Structure formats: C-alpha cells, structure tokens
C-alpha cells in the first residue's frame, strides 16, 4: 500500500471507525441534526444537550452509517467533545474545517485539534473531505439550533 494511503487510514482512524465512540441515542436532546452526504448517500444524525456556556454541549451522541473516515471522525469528535465540557466548540470546528480544506499542506495545530489532527492526511483527498466533515457539520447545525444563540454558519 502507498504511503499516502496509510497517512489517510492511520491506525487511530481504523480503530475509531470500529469503536464508534458516542454512537448511541440521547433520550432528551436539546438539538439534533441529520446530515446527508449526497455523493454517497451516507448519513449521520447527531444529538446534543446544551452546555452551560455558548457553544458548549453537555452530552453528544450520534448514529449513522458511512465510510471509515466519516465514522472515525464522528467517533473522535464525540471523544473530543466529552473531553472539553463547558468549552465553546465552534473554534474547534473552524480549526478542523481549515485543516480539512488544506489539501494536506501545512502543519495542523494538534494542541487545538487533539486526536482530530489524524485527518490531516485525509485532507489531500478532495473527494473524502466531506466524509470527515459530516459529523462536524452536523454538530455546527446543532449548535446553531441551541437556545444559547446561533452564530454565523459556514458550509463544509
């Protein structure tokens, strides 16, 4: 296998794509969003409960079907969100989007992105950027819908 490929399918990604952290259903969510990737037909439904601060979430859960990239990305997002209670997640989403649009250039900021830096290799594959973004866009839409007040939305 080529090196590029293993830069994309890193062990962490393959592992998360199977473990699927946060794949469950919340009984009482404050916001929920269904995001579809029309090019492949894959979909994710993401749910959150509102956190104390603007842009923060209490609980985050998701379910869906998709490729290893989309599933691993949702899983890692769920882990990151759980690790950052009370934090505004918007800057994280923005940072992730910037990295995913970098086409593999530059060095991602792993202090900000944590394990999500693992998708830097995916950003080279234009056709797979949407896969990695799927859960993140869903989270962004959920944050917009939370009572704490919507901020400007950008597209994936």
């Amino acid at each position, binding site marked *: 296998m080529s090196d590029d*490929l293993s830069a994309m399918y890193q062990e962490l990604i393959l592992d998360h794509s199977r473990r699927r952290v946060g794949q469950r259903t919340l009984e009482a969510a404050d916001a929920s969003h269904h995001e579809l990737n029309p090019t492949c037909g894959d979909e994710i439904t993401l749910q959150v409960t509102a956190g104390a601060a603007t842009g923060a979430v209490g609980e985050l859960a998701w379910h869906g079907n998709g*490729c290893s990239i989309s599933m691993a990305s949702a899983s890692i997002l769920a882990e990151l969100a759980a690790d950052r209670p009370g934090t505004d997640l918007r800057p994280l989403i923005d940072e992730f989007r910037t990295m995913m649009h970098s086409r593999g250039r530059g060095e991602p900021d792993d202090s900000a992105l944590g394990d999500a830096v693992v998708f830097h290799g995916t950003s080279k594959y234009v056709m797979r950027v949407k896969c990695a973004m799927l859960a993140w866009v869903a989270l962004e839409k959920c944050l917009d819908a939370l009572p704490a007040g919507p901020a400007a939305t950008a597209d994936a």
Partner: protein
Amino acid sequence: MAPMTLSDTTVALTDAEVAAIRSDFPALDARVNGHPLAYLDSGATAQRPLAVLDRERAFLLESNAAVHRGAHTLAGDATEAFEDARHTVAQFIGAGDDEVVWTANATDALNLVAHAFTAANRPGAVPDERLALRPGDEIVVTEAEHHANLIPWQQVAAATGATLRFVPVDDDGVWTMVDAAAVLTPRTRIIAVAHVSNVTGYTAPVAQLVAAAKELGAITVLDACQSAPHRPLDLGALGVDFAAFSSHKMLGPTGIGVLYGRQPLLDALPPFRTGGSMISTVTMESAEFLPAPQRFEAGTQPVSQAVALAEAVRYLDRVGLDRIEAREHELTTRMVDGLTGMPGIRLVGPRVGEQRTGIAAFDVAGVHAHDVGQLLDARGIAVRVGHHCAQPLHRRLGLTATTRASLYLYSTTDEVDRMLDAVSGVRAYFGAR
C-alpha cells in the same frame, strides 16, 4: 434469462489487438499514485481515442460555423458535417436519419420523451391517442433502473395521474420476463427499461418485452446507455419505440446524447425545449414547429460534439462491436469467477455462467465501498463506488453502496487481475471481521 446473443463464431479481440487499441488512448498511459492507471470505470464514462479528439479539432479549425443558418461556405460545410454525423449514428443503430435526435445526454433524451407525455396530457389538451395517459393508466419500469429512467416517469405519473409500477428484482438484482409479465396489465401504456443494467450488467429480454408491449398497445422506451457502446445494436429490428444513450460512454464527447424515436411516433411528440431552429413560423402569439428531429433541437446544437461522436462510432465500427462484445465477455467471466470465489465478497447480478455485460458490482463485507475504492485507487485502479444512480436497487439488495468495476474495448486481463488482487486484500487491510 435472455439467451446468449453472442455468435459462437465471433473472435474476441486478442491481447495484441487490445494493445494496439490502447495506443490510441493516451489517457490510459497515466500513472496514478505511483502505479499504472487501471481504468475500470468505463461504465461511468469512457476514455477517448485520438481519432475522436483530432476529428473534433479539425472540424473546429476548418469548418466551424453555425449550422442550418446562413448560406456562407463555412456554414454549409458545418451543416454537412453535422448532418453526416447524424447519418453515421443512425446507421450505427439501425435507424433512419429522421429518427435520430441530438440531446444533451441520455438523461435529457429520456426527459424529452417523458416530458412529451406530461405536455400532451396537460389539462384541457386533447392528446394524440398514442400519448394519452389517463388516471389509472400504468407506466412500468423495473426496480433496477438508473435514476434517469425512473424519476422522469415518477414526474409523468405525478403530473398525469398515471400509476408508476415496477418489475421487482430478486436477491441478486435480476428480473425475468416472468416477473415482468406479472406486472403488465391492459392498463400498461409505457414500458421503460434499461437494455443493460449499469449495476448488474443484466440484459433485459427486449424482444419479449416488445412483443408483450405490442400486444398491449404500450410504448416501449429503452435506456441503451450500457448497451449501445458495447454490442451491435439494431433498434429498428428490436422494434422499440424510443431509445436513449450517451456519447461519453462510447468514446465520444460529453455534452451530447441521442434519442432514437420510431417514425412516425417521434413526430407525434410535442417539443421539449422551444426556441430557434425548431420552428417554421413564429408570431408574437404563437409558433409552428418543424417536424422531428428539428422540432427537438432548439438553439445551437452540440455541433462539434456530433461530428466527434460520429468519429467515435466509426472507430467502434472499425474495431467491430461483435469482437468488442466477445472480448468483454471473456474479461467479464474472469472478473465474475475471481470475485465469486472470494470470501466476504458479495457479487451483485447474474450468477456465474449467466450473461452479464462488462460490469461487476460487489459488496465487501464490513468495509464501506468508498474505502474499497480508496484502497484500489492507491494502487492505481479506478473503479466507481456508490449507488451508481440506482438507489432503489441498492435498497432492495440491502446495500447503501457497492464497488463497481466496468470494462471497455481497451481493458486488459492484467487490469482485471490487479483489481481482483487488490480486492482480495481489502478486508484484511480494514480489519473487517
């Protein structure tokens, strides 16, 4: 099952001949991710031989002008080249020149026919009896259709009150004339099916369907996207009323497709697009339309593309569709045999030994099709992944997406083997259990 149409005496293209053919297609010499390209995505779009590129360029440098307009020399040359192209394509499919309509693509051609039914049955209109659709009348498609031959008919049904019915497929995605017969009724007015499925490679029993349709007085529409490029086609002899296919899947350019319509039925259809070059007389209040095919060719046509498509057709004729078909049959058998033996691989479509045209779509247990495609791409193998614009079929098969390898005259044994080898390693790579 449809009987094998392949004559036993047809000699498949040899490896040496395929090698010679490949030298006409520089695009195939590309390297992808450090590997030689193995282009197994011709079912989506084919590559173009130099002869086609050269012909279009020569036309543009020597005789580019607006056709059917003006009287200057260049315009005359362009018009001649354009109408000669129509004649070439008509001959290729066993049609008369006035039975060939240029469209934007096959989708556009199918929409043209479907739209005619909607327009003819608009409230207050008195439709030509052949086009009449009354509430309760039935339009029949199969569960395996490409969206291009499904959604336009959903739209017709919604607009006219007709009912859309479908021939169900079995667990392999295959249907037979028995299944079709169970759906046909005296209310069946339109039967629209893919000649060859772009997912299963299955060939519809067209002769039997046409016979059944004639008995019922129903109109037949053939989606010939996956047959016209790969086998000799005589639409006149097949007896279908309409057929559609796309240039870009048969060595020609994008931006042009073909609608075949049997005369005088074609002439009975109301126009789709209106505008210049399709009218005889226009006042501010109303317009009179020219006969087919001009009636359907509003505005400036894909002129250089028609000329290039004719060159593609000549290329195919020179190689011989029968020999292409025989060659693809050999390689298809190799793909089918290879995939069928592999653990965790579910091949969709007709079983081993049954007829299948150049297409192998499969599911890899535990691995998403896009990941399969990515891994193959890392080895230079280009296949298509997804629902291939056949969501209902995939849903019926319990799948969201499949990986599809598809062949053409330039495909090699080596490419097939590389694909099989890569697929055999997919599950291990992704740790699928």
